[in-house]
């Protein structure tokens, strides 16, 4: 498969890959390795003095280069993002940005679901 230069660059330099734990980290995951796509996000959401926005992101992905590239881009772009926002861009815009074939749209929805799960965990804690 031929990948865009952007996809190739973010796939090859996935600097935000990893996991993080701590009092202000919130985790969400979606998909399954058995089905070929699994994504986990850890969002660092410090307390109220930062406005409750996302501070830092780590991700893990068992996935194709497109999904890994999108996860890396999302992780880079998410700093300062409000928890209520879904992703820095919606799935269709991400698909266009990384020239993801339409047949892979479902894999990007796994990214969105994993992000939603992590953000949801943070919102639950904030509202508790």
């Amino acid at each position, binding site marked *: *498969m031929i*990948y865009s230069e952007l996809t190739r660059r973010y796939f090859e330099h996935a600097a935000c890959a990893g996991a993080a734990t701590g009092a202000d980290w919130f985790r969400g995951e979606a998909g399954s390795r058995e089905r070929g796509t699994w994504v986990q996000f850890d969002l660092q959401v410090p307390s109220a003095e930062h406005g409750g926005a996302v501070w830092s992101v780590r991700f893990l992905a*068992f996935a194709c*280069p497109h999904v890994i590239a999108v996860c890396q881009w999302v992780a880079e772009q998410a700093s300062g993002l409000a928890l209520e926002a879904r992703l820095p861009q919606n799935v269709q815009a991400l698909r266009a940005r990384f020239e993801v*074939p339409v*047949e892979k749209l479902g894999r990007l929805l796994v990214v969105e679901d994993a992000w939603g799960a992590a953000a949801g965990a943070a919102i639950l804690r904030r509202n508790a």
Partner: protein
Amino acid sequence: MSSGVAYLDYAATTPVAPEVALRMSECLTAEGVFGNPSSVNHEFGVRAAERVESARAQVAACVGAEPGEVIWTSGATEANNLAIFGAAHYYRGSARHIVTARTEHKSVLDSCRELERRGWRVTYLSPGPDGVLEPGRIAEAILPETALVSVMHVNNEIGTIQDIAEIGAICARSSQARLHVDAAQSVGKIRLDFATLGVDLLSLSAHKVYGPKGAGALIVCRRRGVQLAPLLHGGGQERALRSGTIATHQVVGMGAAFALAGAEPPGEIGRIHALRERLWQGIGALGGVWRNGDPLRSVPHILNVSVEGVEGESLIADVGVRIAVSTGSACTSAQREPSYVLRALGRDDRLAESSLRFSLGRYSSGADVDAAIDAVTRTVKRLRGISGR
């Protein structure tokens, strides 16, 4: 290789040997042997026909056949099609059944599926986990109405060698089952003696043996009297089995390549085998790496592995930047299908997707192998890190 990327995909194709390219170039221009080999009423045609027949003798000698048994084709895919459809059409009045294996090349499997659409019955046999097809299974599958048994000599993905002599003996005991063997991956790697194997039809390819793409042959056994109906009609070339002007430069290239293959230095097979085992030792040291196929029943130049804990498309995308290898997975526009060969061996979808086929050849070196070990090690460690494994 010129790009600096280690080429370990010789089972996909090989570079044309310089000696072969030279022979081919002599058959193209006005100064060379450019005549139509069918135009034997003048010198140009006669000289071309002499080159064609010389090449035919070279191919025949390499595989233990008679020159008159060699039918030129455009490659092994056409040879497989001619064998299967040609036999099916010729014998359709008395037979409507074919036996083959689930691990055959697509050109065999798709031909068989097309025959099923035309009302034929096809028995698809599954090999064992080692890729070996038990000859007794073939004996059980042959019916009185079986026209053809089609089994490849060497599997193109995992390198497993089938016991063709035993399968040939089984077919010889049946009333009318002819044996077709796809030997595209055999020449130059293991001994191939058409005259003693009990094979009726043998498919060959030039570009797997340092010859040109677009050239191949079907060996049709005369002694056993096998008959075929042609797929192409026209000038009646190639005993009327394959009409069309013979591409002199292509078949001359194939002949030269097969002559070279038959004259490989005695130590070459051992050298390639040692390189392959060095590659396996290096990659296997990663852990979680499965070797596909039986190394004791395999050609010396192919190593197929499945890697745990990495996604298949990312594996080939990342490693492919540094080394030229194949993946068993079929890649369409966006979706990947796990290797049907590895699935037939019982590998699950994830391991069938995350497979790599390394195939070594004449120009492979220890440095290529070390580069491959380094590339795979870096890629697998990186992707396992990204996936949390």
